[in-house]
């Protein structure tokens, strides 16, 4: 642990709330001021994040840095402990970047029914919750942040969402809450069991990660398996893993673009992060028993999500289902309990955040222009909006795992790892069934084929071809479609235009990041790997 600049993480986490405080005093009508304050706050937060990035000691990325611990709720032994290591750093920064970009995008894209001020306040609150979850080093603190995230998203979907927003938001909230409840039970149980373990001074017990890291592994295996079960459901709902995923397509489809992006880019990662940070290291004896179940469900999710995509007629819902498949690869990587697999999973989390976030951005902009996302009504996007069309193509290629783009490094190493999972002689907690995992690998590889299928199919139908008659005559349409006649249709779809300035500002960083992490994956792997080794070392594997 490196206890320098102890204030840094707290500043980065809570700075958005300062902005919220200021915004409360801005009249509702003054939208520009509200947006301005929110954006400035988000940028300031990101600046703190970049400062963190600079100050981070990359030679010791396995250690918790900017670590601080304080008394918090003493009666229940909860502490205010925050720290950052190589696992949380990329996600922590990603959350800040995404918030800024989403705000830029929202500048002239505030969804119906308006109320700009509230919308931006929610985004700032969300940012605090997300960042807090990634820096928390205490189970109760983690849980609080984990839950703080729920409420803004609930309102975002429920108020600014689509037609079926009430159902979707309620489902999202309740489903996640259900998982959280079980998770909390497990947290408490874990605390009680470790506290009462023989040879432990009960007065030393507290909720800090460090405590569980040291004592969790001594719990009897059967008890640990039950405790793991609660955490499993809590995190699996959030990921979401098959069969706990049904809230996701509804939430994504109904959420406003901004909500979808944040949901895909960050919120889903809270679940996978929980597995890597809490469930697996604290209860290694149970993790080995649960891993095959996680692996099987992950692979079912890969295939099932892909099949779900193929059945969709709506572009946004298709992207939502693709998340189920991609998170399946992440969970498959985690379930191997190897260095390679978990590193791949962490990379995959960030890559999925960038790529699927971009896809949701594009879907939102398409919806705004065409007022529909029905695949069969869209055609020839490349003719009307060439830039948008190429961006969609780029993201589709990234999403299907083209090497050289970020998505590949989450997928292929996960496949490599799952062919050769934790196994061997003399492992402290036992190994995994190699045969099972090799079978899973083959099925997962089939998922990459299906991914190519649904993404290219989507692309072929929406971007290629001639502009459909319904939308013809507007937009870029530079290639001499005079016969369609601007006069006839010119009035209907005058808002079909190519990528605008705000979209460029919001998207360019993501597009660049997809390429940069695809070409130089070591940027992330080097940071994560030492911290991941620290987790996997306890399994004694590779």
């Amino acid at each position, binding site marked *: 642990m490196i206890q320098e600049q102890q204030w840094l993480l707290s500043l980065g986490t809570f700075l958005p709330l300062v902005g919220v405080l200021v915004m409360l005093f801005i009249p509702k009508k003054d939208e520009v001021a509200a947006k301005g304050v929110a954006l400035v706050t988000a940028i300031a937060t990101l600046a703190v994040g970049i400062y963190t990035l600079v100050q981070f000691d990359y030679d010791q990325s396995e250690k918790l840095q900017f670590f601080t611990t304080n008394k918090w709720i003493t009666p229940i032994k909860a502490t205010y402990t925050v720290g950052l290591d190589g696992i949380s750093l990329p996600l922590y920064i990603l959350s800040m970047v995404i918030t800024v970009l989403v705000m830029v995008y929202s500048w002239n894209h505030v969804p119906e029914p308006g109320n700009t001020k509230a919308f931006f306040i929610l985004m700032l609150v969300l940012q605090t919750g997300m960042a807090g979850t990634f820096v928390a080093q205490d189970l109760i603190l983690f849980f609080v942040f984990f839950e703080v995230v729920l409420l803004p998203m609930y309102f975002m979907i429920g108020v600014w969402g689509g037609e079926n927003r009430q159902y979707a938001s309620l489902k999202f909230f309740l489903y996640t809450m259900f998982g959280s409840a079980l998770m909390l039970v497990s947290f408490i149980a874990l605390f009680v069991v470790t506290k009462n373990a023989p040879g432990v001074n009960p007065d030393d017990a507290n909720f800090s990660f460090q405590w569980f890291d040291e004592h969790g592994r001594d719990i009897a295996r059967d008890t640990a398996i039950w405790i793991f079960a609660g955490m499993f459901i809590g995190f699996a709902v959030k990921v979401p893993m098959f069969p706990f995923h049904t809230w996701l397509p509804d939430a994504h489809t109904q959420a406003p673009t901004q909500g979808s992006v944040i949901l895909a880019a960050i919120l889903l990662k809270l679940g996978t992060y929980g597995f890597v940070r809490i469930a697996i290291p604290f209860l290694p004896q149970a993790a080995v028993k649960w891993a095959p179940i996680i692996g099987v469900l992950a692979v079912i999710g890969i295939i099932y999500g892909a099949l779900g995509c193929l*059945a969709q007629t709506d572009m946004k819902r298709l992207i939502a289902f693709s998340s189920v498949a991609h998170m399946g690869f992440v969970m498959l990587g985690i379930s191997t309990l190897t260095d390679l697999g978990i590193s791949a999973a962490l990379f995959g989390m960030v890559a999925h955040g960038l790529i699927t976030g971009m896809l949701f951005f594009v879907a939102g902009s398409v919806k705004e222009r065409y007022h529909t996302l029905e695949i069969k009504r869209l055609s020839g996007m490349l003719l009307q909006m060439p830039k948008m069309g190429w961006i969609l193509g780029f993201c589709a290629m990234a999403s299907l795992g083209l090497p050289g783009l970020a998505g590949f490094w989450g997928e292929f190493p996960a*496949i490599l790892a799952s*062919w050769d999972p934790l196994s061997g002689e003399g492992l402290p907690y036992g190994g995994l069934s190699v045969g099972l995992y090799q079978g899973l690998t083959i099925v997962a590889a089939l998922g*990459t084929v299906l991914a190519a299928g649904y993404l290219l199919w989507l692309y072929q139908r929406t971007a290629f*071809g001639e502009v459909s008659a319904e939308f013809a005559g507007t937009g870029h349409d530079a290639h001499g479609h005079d016969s369609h006649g601007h006069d006839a249709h010119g009035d209907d779809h005058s808002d079909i235009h190519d990528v605008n300035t705000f979209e460029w500002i919001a998207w360019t960083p993501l597009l660049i990041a997809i390429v940069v992490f695809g070409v130089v994956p070591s940027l992330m792997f080097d940071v994560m790997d030492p911290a991941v080794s620290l987790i996997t070392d306890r399994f004694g594997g590779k």
Partner: protein
Amino acid sequence: MFAESTEAAGWFLENAWLIPLIPAVAFFLILGFGKRMPRGGSEIGIASMLASLVIAAGTAYQWVQRVDAPVAEGEHALARGSFGFARTFSEEAAEAGHEVAPVISTLDWFDIGRLHVSIGSHIDGLAVTLLLLVAFISTLVQIYSTEYVRGDRRYTHFFASITLFSAGMLTMVLAPNMLQFILGWEIMGLCSFLLIGHWWEETANSKAALKAFFTVRVGDMGLLVGTAALFALFGTMEIGEINEQAANFAGDNKGMLLFAAIALFIACIGKSGQFPLHTWLPDAMAGPTPVSSLLHSSTMVVAGVFLVARLYPVFHVGLDINVAGQSFNLIAVIGGITVLIAAGLAFVQDDIKKVLAYSTVSQLGYMMLGLGVGAWTGAVFHIFTHAFFKCALFLCAGSIAHTGSHHSFDMKKDMGGLRKKMPVTFVVWIVSTMALMGVPFFSGFFSKDEIIDSAKHNHYTVFYFVAIIGAAMTAAYMTRATYLTFFGKARGGAAHFVHGHDDAHDTHDAHADAHGHDAHGHDDHHAPAHHSAPLPFAKTDSSWQITVPLIILGVLAIFSGYLNAPALGIHWFEHMTESSIGAGSAMSVPPPPEFSWAAAAPGLLLVLAGFVVSLLISKAVFGEKKTALQGLTQRNSLLGAGHKFLVNKYYLDALYENVIVKAVAYPIARAAYWTNQHVLDGIVNAVGIGGKRTGELVYKYVDQGLVDGAVNGSGATARGAGGALQPVQSGKVNLYGALLFGAAAVGALVLVLVNS
């Protein structure tokens, strides 16, 4: 111990990584600045390919020097060169014959746990061959394209994609490890998608592009899984180390090696258009002709063959190739089937590009067959010679469409009698066709004959017969295509051209609508001002950008074969490349058999027979005289059925598209989705509704009935009012939340009690 690296190998051998890097950079330059350049970015593409070609030539030259004069033995040199490159030269050379160590230059890319990944170059005879080949053909095709796609609405994109393709292929060819290999492999797939779908306004083209990418991707599953299996088995991604370990494989885990070989071979089936995944390749002809000639005949589609050749020890040991008594193996069987079924399909095509496409599939089958029977040199050499003559044939087809047949590729409707008006195209076509048929002293003869000879010599007798029958079929279908194109009466588009009406553009539209992939996107193609000058001795032929590459390729279609002509006692190519399959290993690839005319005779006689029979039938069926053979397939039901079977491509496409794809895309996907909506989501909704009901009941009977029962009568009224005031659903969140937390609290209590 530490030597100056430049002394150890040579500048080009160590800096070969520049060969793919230059076109890769050029790709970004074309994207960024192409549209502002006077020639739309094509100049950047051509310049980059020329630069790559120069370096590739230098690399080849130094490689030849290296083979002929091996460096001092037993020396391990490790030096740090410029740019932080760590160079390793393992010079364990020359224990037996010409074993020359590859030159490997790598740069660390990243590490994750035990996975170490580098990028760089692995230069040996095989890599040098392909580097030179790809750079050379790419250059010619780009020059050709400046005329062929002139005025295209996406001219710059075309050059960007085709340059990126070359970068991808070159990256793959010199890959020192499997990850870089996969990188190049997938970039090629992307470019193939982009270029087949270049004229994506038409649904047929975009569907062909989708089909190509998707079919190849099915095979790529094998590449991912096979690489994972090799990594688990050998703990490395480095191709050199994998080959070495596979060649000396003695473990008890032979099954896993077999599995890896099969998995990787599935990828090769997809990429190299082998049966049963060959169906995408003929459809890929929807792309512009330069694309067909570069990607889909001479370079990209050999990637699968290259993979087998590159990791030959894995396949050779894994599949027990050349083990005494073996007369069948997976690679030979797939290659053999491919040779025959594709040759059969080439007979019934009316589209000249489809004839060539099936011919390509068939020739790729020869290469695979060669690798399957242990004729490594023959197969690799066939990659080399086939590239020149098949590329030439495609460019001839493009030249005809461009100049002679009004952008139609239909041999029956728009060609015929073109030989006099297009002399250059005609001569190059004939030369290339003879090379393809395997006529002695043309390049294809030397490479194909070695494969055929090895099949017999290595006791793969069935495949020997497959190969010579295939050769006869090749001669026959090419004779048919040649007759239809250049002889007989000029028809349709060709008639206008041959009879001097080639300015009669009024009829063009009808033709363009009826057929012709190239019709689209060539809107402003016809303005005469766009056509550049033809060569002085062939004034009616295509312009020089088209004919000059044709002449060069035509010359090579003859002479490239003399690099390895066993019939003349030349084994130079073999000498240069043989070290590529592992030096000093326990693996035993038999040496190519001694050439004898007696052994070659049966195959040559069959080729002659195929030529004669086909010529006679073609004259009878397509000639001007009325004969009994015309319309025979309509009159004879058996022949008709056979014809129909071939025209429908053995119904494989129907199987894939109507049965498999439709099953996955529709019933299976829909069933999964139905399950999602009605079963999984049904449970969720049922729980939600159940919770709500429970809440209502608790509220009604427990809360209102018991607790609040004392307050008589007012309960119902209050409930109604409360319900009306609250927003329909959001108000219940509190209730659910409370219930869930209540449950959680009870659960926690139970756990605490149980455990303490």
